[in-house]
């Protein structure tokens, strides 16, 4: 597939607010992103011309924000609406190998949808994990350091070497990844064995450290995970906010102004993957 042919849907509902940066990240790479309100996929309150099918796109992105005002739980309403009519289609989409990325609120949606962690089934009936309120009970908003832990399973980080540390900003109140309390160790072990852990929070030395390096108290410092097949990926920090080097807080000091920002590879990796795969 040629780069210009790749179509990406940046999904929105009321309260989504990171769609522009997400759209821009794809557009700058030369692929064709499109803002798609969820109702256009569900065929509700829109004309025939406005209706879309998820298979019109080669990649879906659920951007950050406060979808539906975070009512009930962060991401729960977005997920419930998607699941109501698109569950089987989404499962098919994922099985076909099309990539889906959820950032911040989008990660919360993927967890609530049951698409992540996606260990033993593509989409689970009920959530198998939770992104719970940060241990600090605050909105944690600052640059965070992420160590890339993946061995090549995740299609969104193919261009990042294992062990590399990237600065990607976090901005969330509900980012503490949890599994059923008495099974947390078992879940983390399974994720490790399946190569589903993608990013972990670290300190500047690259060590797994507690607060404030881990902004939320996430189990095993996990910041991002993918499903078993590696084509559904969710992370709390925002790669679309560090597309360019001048978006880094230290851009005047490092002399790296011409280099890309630390988040750009997430988008480049998936575009490269799509070109090769389809």
């Amino acid at each position, binding site marked *: 597939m040629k780069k210009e042919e790749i179509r990406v849907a940046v999904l929105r509902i009321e309260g989504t607010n990171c769609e522009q940066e997400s759209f821009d990240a794809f557009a700058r790479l030369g692929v064709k992103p499109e803002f798609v309100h969820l109702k256009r996929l569900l065929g509700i309150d829109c004309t025939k011309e406005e209706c879309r099918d998820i298979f019109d796109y080669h990649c879906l992105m659920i951007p950050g924000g406060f979808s539906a005002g975070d009512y*009930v*739980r962060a991401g*729960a*309403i977005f997920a*419930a609406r998607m699941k109501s009519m698109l569950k089987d289609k989404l499962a098919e989409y994922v099985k076909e190998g099309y990539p889906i990325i959820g950032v911040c609120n989008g990660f919360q949606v993927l967890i*609530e949808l049951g698409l992540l962690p996606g260990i033993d089934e593509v989409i689970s009936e*009920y*959530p*198998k*994990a*939770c992104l*719970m*309120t*940060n*241990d*600090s*009970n605050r909105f944690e908003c600052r640059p965070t350091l992420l160590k890339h832990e993946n061995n090549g399973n995740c299609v969104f980080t193919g261009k990042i070497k294992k062990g590399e540390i990237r600065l990607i900003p976090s901005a969330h109140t509900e980012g503490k990844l*949890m*599994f*059923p*309390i*008495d099974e947390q160790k078992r879940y983390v072990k399974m994720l490790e064995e399946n190569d589903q852990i993608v990013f972990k929070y670290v300190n500047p030395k690259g060590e797994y450290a507690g607060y404030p390096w881990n902004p939320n108290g996430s189990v095993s410092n996990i910041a991002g995970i993918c499903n078993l097949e590696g084509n559904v990926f969710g992370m709390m920090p925002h790669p679309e906010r560090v597309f360019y080097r001048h978006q880094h807080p230290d851009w005047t000091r490092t002399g790296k102004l011409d280099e890309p920002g630390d988040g750009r590879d997430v988008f480049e990796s998936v575009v490269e993957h799509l070109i090769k795969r389809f």
Partner: protein
Amino acid sequence: MFEAKVTIGLKKGITDPEGATTLKSLHLLGFDTVKEVRSQKTFLIKMDENDEKKARKKVEEMCQKLLTNPVIHSYTVDMKRV
């Protein structure tokens, strides 16, 4: 018509940051006998149903499909005819 009162709380063993923050503030306000605060959320749901058993079953389904995340939440349901 039935009204279901769904009360959702965190499972035992799961830390409750909202409860902990509230506890701290209550102590600051001088309520020093307060030992623990746990936060809960309540939904009141009116349903056009005649059979309590059926209505309750539907509420349970609502809890599983949207109102709670089974990983962290536990809930109770009280049914009242209105």
